[in-house]
């Protein structure tokens, strides 16, 4: 629909989802507003649970990816070093896989349903499954101005891979319907607008204003009996408008609530238009957006693709000459280890940021599950028989942390990503009998 870079003089886009969200979300009391009525230290259950995914395409350097032990004694390998300060708040999970993404080719065929475990279709018509983040967004998204934010630092592709799967599968993690991925937002400025400018609700107010004016004008032209009907309409319009306006104020409310607790809600200036030239700046901005969106309850669900599958991104600042995908074919190189570690460090940055945000006796991270994930284990072999997974955050006290969990030898039916998703969705009140290829929760989570 639009050029990946904003055309000169062209106005910024707005996310359609943002606008759509603006309406349905308006019914619930903004969470922070309700908080003010609570005691100084509300119980953990009073805080919303959040879910986030941070993605690295094409796998890691397996020589430097391992973890052992628990808690403070946990030993982290080189690539995981950035998580050292967060050891008590993470789980490093090894040995999980997605059955639907094995045995049908490489890359997009190994990525298209990473978060749903659905079977994906080859050829012109793309078809996957609703992803776990969107499942959660569908459940908890009604309570926030945006049901989810879906971000990427890497432009999506839509060509064909030699496996005959569309590269749309390589470019998207989040699927709202099986037929359409959620469009990724790559511009920090537009993501900011959607989150904090409340563009969706602003436009709703503007539509409602207009029709209100029209109904009032009509009222002067129609019979008194018809007027009773038009009044019913007008009252409804005014009522909805009030609610939308109320939602628009939630950012202020968030600030007020923070002030009342003697902390300051993190603020963030609107990022500049266009794509940041330096990837490091880009990722940092995206992480900041997610952190603040979580803290201020603008949304509870986020996904961030730092590099997509088959990424052609460059890392001159890491001293790597090849693009991302080429480098991954030599994945046990030092260079590729640096690429993977860079991704982990960004993940650690976001987790630490969430951990610095006080919420009751704990932090926002304590009420979050932030997942780090790649689609491959060993890039040079396109091996996805196990996936690198890290979870950060205690999810409101429902998820024990500080552990290393290894399912590699648990048997094919007991080491499913979809089992992990079932377990996580349970904690959001979504209790399914089956998800993707799993009918059982992941044991010992």
């Amino acid at each position: 629909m639009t050029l990946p870079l904003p055309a000169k003089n062209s106005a910024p886009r707005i996310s359609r989802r943002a606008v759509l969200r603006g309406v349905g979300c308006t019914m619930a009391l903004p969470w922070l507003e309700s908080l003010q009525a609570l005691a100084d230290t509300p119980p953990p259950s009073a805080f919303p649970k959040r879910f986030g995914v941070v993605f690295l395409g094409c796998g890691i350097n397996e020589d430097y990816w391992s973890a052992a032990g628990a808690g403070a004694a946990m030993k982290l390998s080189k690539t995981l070093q950035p998580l050292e300060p967060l050891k008590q708040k993470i789980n490093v999970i090894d040995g999980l896989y997605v059955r639907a993404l094995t045995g049908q080719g490489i890359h997009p065929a190994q990525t298209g349903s990473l978060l749903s475990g659905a079977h994906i279709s080859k050829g012109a018509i793309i078809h996957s499954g609703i992803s776990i983040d969107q499942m959660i967004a569908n459940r908890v998204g009604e309570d926030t101005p945006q049901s989810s934010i879906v971000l990427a630092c890497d432009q999506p592709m839509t060509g064909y891979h030699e496996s005959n799967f569309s590269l749309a599968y390589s470019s998207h993690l989040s699927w709202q319907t099986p037929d359409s991925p959620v469009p990724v937002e790559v511009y920090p400025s537009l993501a900011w607008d959607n989150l904090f400018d409340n563009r969706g609700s602003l436009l709703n107010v503007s539509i409602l204003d207009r029709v209100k004016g029209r109904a009032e004008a009509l009222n002067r032209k129609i019979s008194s009996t018809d007027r009773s009907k038009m009044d019913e309409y007008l009252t409804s319009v005014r009522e909805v408008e009030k609610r939308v306006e109320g939602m628009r104020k939630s950012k202020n409310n968030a600030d007020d609530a923070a002030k009342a607790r003697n902390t300051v809600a993190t603020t963030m200036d609107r990022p500049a238009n266009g794509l940041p030239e330096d990837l490091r700046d880009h990722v940092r901005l995206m992480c900041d957006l997610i952190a603040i969106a979580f803290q201020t309850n603008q949304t509870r669900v986020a996904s961030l693709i730092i590099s997509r599958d088959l990424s052609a991104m460059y890392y001159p600042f890491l001293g790597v000459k090849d693009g991302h995908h080429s480098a991954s074919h030599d994945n046990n190189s030092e260079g590729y280890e640096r690429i993977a570690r860079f991704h982990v460090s960004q993940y650690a940055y976001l987790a630490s940021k969430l951990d610095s945000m006080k919420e009751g006796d704990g932090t926002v991270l304590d009420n979050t599950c932030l997942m780090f994930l790649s689609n491959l284990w060993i890039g040079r072999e396109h091996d996805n028989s196990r996936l690198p997974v890290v979870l950060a955050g205690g999810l409101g006290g429902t998820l024990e942390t500080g552990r290393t969990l290894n399912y590699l030898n648990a048997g094919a039916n007991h080491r499913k990503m979809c089992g992990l998703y079932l377990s996580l969705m349970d904690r959001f009140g979504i209790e399914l009998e089956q998800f993707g290829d799993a009918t059982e929760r992941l044991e010992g989570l």
Partner: protein
Amino acid sequence: MMISSFMQLRTLPAVLALAVMPAAGAVTPALDRQFEQTVKPFVAKYCIACHSGQTPAAQFDLKAYATTDLVTRDFPRWALVMQRLTAKEMPPKPIPAPPEEARQQVIDWIQALRAEEVKKSAGDPGLVLARRLSNAEYNYTIRDLTGQDMRPTREFPIDPANPAGFDNSSESLTMSPALLSKYLQAARGVAGHMVLTPDGIDFAPYPMLVETDRDKYSIQRIVDFYLRQPTDFADYFEAAWRYRYRAELGKPEATLASIAADSKVSAKYLPMVWQILQEKDAVGPIAKLQAMWRDLPAPGSDQLQTLRGWCVGMRNFVVKIRTHTAMQFAAPVVIGLPAGSQPLLNWKLYQFAAHRRDSDPNDLLSDTDPVPDVPPIPKYPDSHDEAAPHWAALSAKARAGDPDLVVPAAKRSRYEAAFAQLASVFPDAFYVKERGRYFPDDSQDKGRLLSAGYHNTMGYFRDDTPLMELILDDEGQKQLNSLWDEFDFIANLTARTWVQYFVNQSGEVRGTGNESGTARPLDQEITDEAVIKGLRHAYLVLAEADQRTDPMAFQAIRDHFDRVNATLRGLEKEHADAEPKHLEALLRFAARAYRRPLTKAERDDFLAYYHTLREKNQLSHEDAIRESVAGVLMSPDFLYRIDLVDAGMATSGSTPRVASLKTSGIPSRPLSAYSLASRLSYFLWASMPDDELLRRAAAGDLQRPDVLLAQTRRMLKDARVSGLATEFAGNWLDFRHFETNNTVDRERFPTFNNDLREAMFQEPVRFIEDLIHNDRSVLDMLYGKYTFVNPALAEHYGMPEVAGNQNTWVRVDDAGKYQRGGLLPMAVFLTQNSPGLRTSPVKRGYWVVRRVLGEVIPPPPPVVPELPADEAKSELPLRDMLAQHRANPVCAACHARFDSFGLAFEGYGPVGEARTEDLAGRSVDTHAVFPGGSQGAGMDAVIAYIREHRQADFVDNVSRKLLAYALNRSLQLSDESIIDRMESGLPANDYRFDWLVETIVASPQFLTRRVSDSREPLQPETRQPQSGDSQSRR
């Protein structure tokens, strides 16, 4: 289950009172006097013992009617009183019967009161408030407005029905904040389907917010276009044969053009095929083709049934020759660039596309030449390597030993010319629909529609020159060209392809790998001319650096980058040029949505809003248009049907005709032409007026009886009449929500699946659609010996198999053989009126008398005995339990009036299946004694009884229901004269459904509206009477 729950009878509704007689003025003093002297004492003596107090019998308190005026206001109940007294059903048994004379006096009084009121108010159009579209109307209207059946109200709360049972009246259609929020979401949802084309606004079947959906939409339209074209050579040979034997085939006048039209082949191409078949002195493949042509059997020959086979043989011959002699190309070689490099690969694709009507002379073999060796087939090349050698080897192998390619050495050039001529008429392909990496080897990479065959990055390529040149006429060429233009316009193809290429592949020119891209350009947009020119330069420099570079490569590189740049610049202009057209389209959209012309002020307002969105809200053009579309759909002018006196007058130039129809003492005026158009279309289609109807409104002659009648008849023949069949019949007969029915135990009835459920729902709709389309008798609903079935329903009914899919419906004329025919034995009613694991004679019988025959049955008392839930587990047959129930005279008063109908249907099981045994294995007994004492067994007996005794009830009920549906309100006494007209005219008009429709459309009720402001304003809320349970049924 409780017997009571089936009888969630609306007590005579409440809201009715408001519609009936807003100002029941004084009746004659004589009637008043009789009320005091005769009626009241009778009621006091015989009725109020039961019908009064805290829990009046049948929830009907007769003590409340203190004055004649109050009786008038609630007349329908008193009509019931009259019925019961006439039938001597009241007072019931233990109470002594009143003297005949006293009874008759009360009956006469009620009749006189009715006559008086009818006279006084005849022609009063009644109060029809502005009202929002019902959910169903909203869906149909969106469908007709956008051309896409999106059904946005699927998740809306169900609309409540009015007392007449319809969900289309202002009495019941209310607005609330929750609903308004849903409308806002629906409006945005619909607007999300919007797609801007170079000429205007269109709507796609799915949201067009994601790039993959925009691609899918555009590609599908082009592929569908391709597949629609007649490109099978065999069809042309067959058509040529018909021309050759036109005289023998009885069409001596036929021309190639007329035969092309009859055979549905291209009139442009057929003469070319004909021509080559007539070629003189042909040699080689043309001579051979002509020989096959001459061998085609003549008409009358006993071989004629094989004509098609012969033509296919000719086609296969041509296809073989063309496949073996098609031109082949490889990407020009540039050392340092992969063969899949876009500038080089594109050159190859263009060559293929340009030479589909050429024959490669090198593929021919002179008869003096040695037979060449069959080459070994190399393995598939890598993704970035040239596939041409592989394809050349495959082709050579396929060609090897083809004798048709061997030509006399001495006449080689003449033969080459013949091959060339054949190729010019028969291209090796008319178009390329799919393309993979090893193009033209299509054995891999299936399903990449219109793809350019690039590796990983997106790209599409158009290759259909032969189709354009040979098959398509001017109009077809124009269509196909605009589909491709729109592909780029809608999906932003060239720009996205360029950017994906730039980011992911252009690194190849810098030696950073085949796939890896380039760092983001600083401060510059990737699609800038300077960036494109910069890369062009880099490629040329690379090509020049090595002497081994194929000279063609330079042209290929220049062409490619220049083409990208020109296309992008062209698109920028096209987008700019299209903006004013989109605004015009927006205004047209709004006028259609409002179902009337926009005023000047409204047009200005839309434009001003658009500019605000662009400038103040910083929206893009497309977002601003989309936002405006959502705004249109939220406007009360769209959501509501409001009769504005001056609607459209300012623009149409005609003056409102205020000739008031002085038919009653209640002032009324004609509807505006546009309101009338809407009233007509929402009656007949449950949807917005079409362009033709709006044109008549604009012309100002829609109110003319002949024009109105002509429009009505036209519209009744239209497919959109399914709206009437679904909404009117669905609500009248109470199956409207059957599509979501979940009461059937699917484990016990495994044949009941969603397809069958949908088929059951469709059966009465199809039946009634057919009845309307073909001017059939309303009595066919009862007596028709036919019905309509699809494969699922045919199987369910045990009828002969119907071939096709679930949308294949066929008429079954001898439905009686399968115990079907007409509405009554349709599975949808039998299933809906069964509570799951047993039938319910009570519900089924009640449905017949109430829904079909229009009889009013009072609600049951609060405490009723329970019947077993599972037929298989009950000791007695249902019939015996019901007989016990009827032994109680209190129950019998009502049950005697409907149980028998249901008992006669015991030959149908819980999902409407014909049966001889119930679920417990007892043989079913369908014998029934109908009210009045006549007896019989099975459905035939029910129908015979109705024909004999109740046909008038049915006709009266259909008439009333249709009128209430048409007028969007409950009926009132002033409507009696139309009802009389409808019913009395039916026999002379063969009981045709359209007679009922035409009578309604011509009535003052339909054509006028009350001028209500001259009256005391009505406050509907305050008039809601006490027991307002009428809307709680669902």
